[in-house]
């Protein structure tokens, strides 16, 4: 009886601890600039400097945390095989978290979350995404 109960508890615990297929979080902290090499599996046809890309997932937000105001901007959004779309994070606002959803950008499904340098001085920030 105890052994059976233990098995049930073990199975229940393993189910509780197993993340859903779409769950996940990604983050990258570093300097975004026009010269920094990209990091992560950015889509091949737009894989340049100053990009941080997550792996593929069913992301529901792409985001950036900044720690200081800047004169420039970062592009925060998503990639799929044929399109990149995002919004320029207003980096003149400190100290803030900027989030954008795939639906806001007319995208959905299996995507790469991406943040890339756009304008201004090199900038230290944390790009992240959650599913």
């Amino acid at each position, binding site marked *: 009886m105890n052994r059976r109960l233990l098995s049930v508890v073990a199975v229940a615990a393993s189910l509780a601890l197993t993340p859903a297929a779409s769950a996940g979080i990604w983050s990258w902290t570093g300097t975004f600039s026009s010269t920094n090499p990209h990091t992560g599996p950015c889509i091949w*046809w737009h894989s340049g400097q100053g990009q941080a890309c997550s792996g593929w997932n069913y992301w529901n937000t792409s985001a950036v945390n900044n720690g200081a105001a800047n004169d420039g901007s970062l592009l925060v959004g998503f990639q799929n095989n044929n399109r990149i779309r995002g919004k*320029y994070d207003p980096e*003149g606002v*400190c*100290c803030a978290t900027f*989030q954008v959803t795939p639906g806001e*950008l007319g995208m959905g499904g299996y995507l790469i979350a991406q943040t890339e340098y756009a304008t201004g001085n090199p900038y230290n920030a944390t790009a992240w995404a959650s599913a």
Partner: protein
Amino acid sequence: MVCLLVAAGLTAAFLVRARTGPAAPPGYPSTIGASGKPVTPSAASRKLGIASLQLIGTRGNRAFYRGSDADNHPCLGAGDASNLGTVGFTLCSRDERPLIASDPVIAVPDVQMTEGSGRWQLVRLDGFAADSVARVTATDSAGVVVAEAQVVDNVFSIVPATAVEPGTIKAYDRNGKLVFSHDYSGG
């Protein structure tokens, strides 16, 4: 506060308070004054951490909000006006302080690039502006004005009539004086 800003060499700055009531101390010249009407955040907005929303206004098919996150940090955001209470993007302070912008305009251009095109296309420009800002324009990468919008209740939305590469976003006060300019053509 004004002295500090002047001392810092800032020509303009504004505070955004997400709570109800006066948006800023009376007389502060460059502040978002619209407080908005309470709207219940949707499940999708709550998933982004939004706890409360106040609808500032709608422009075309866009709805603009101020609000707060679960830790009561002030936020701004916007989303589809046909789905009130759901924000598509948010900008939230990371502590209890108001969002502080170094410019009188918080511009949030939306751009895309498709495979093979090799260039960005301006899809939309949403934004928030201080009380003193009256008009916002968007140019293409050659500097030609392709769209403009009046700022009403501190918000604006621009959708270019044709596909253009993003250029410079400019904002003007009620006297026509340029108060904000940001060039996105290098992005």
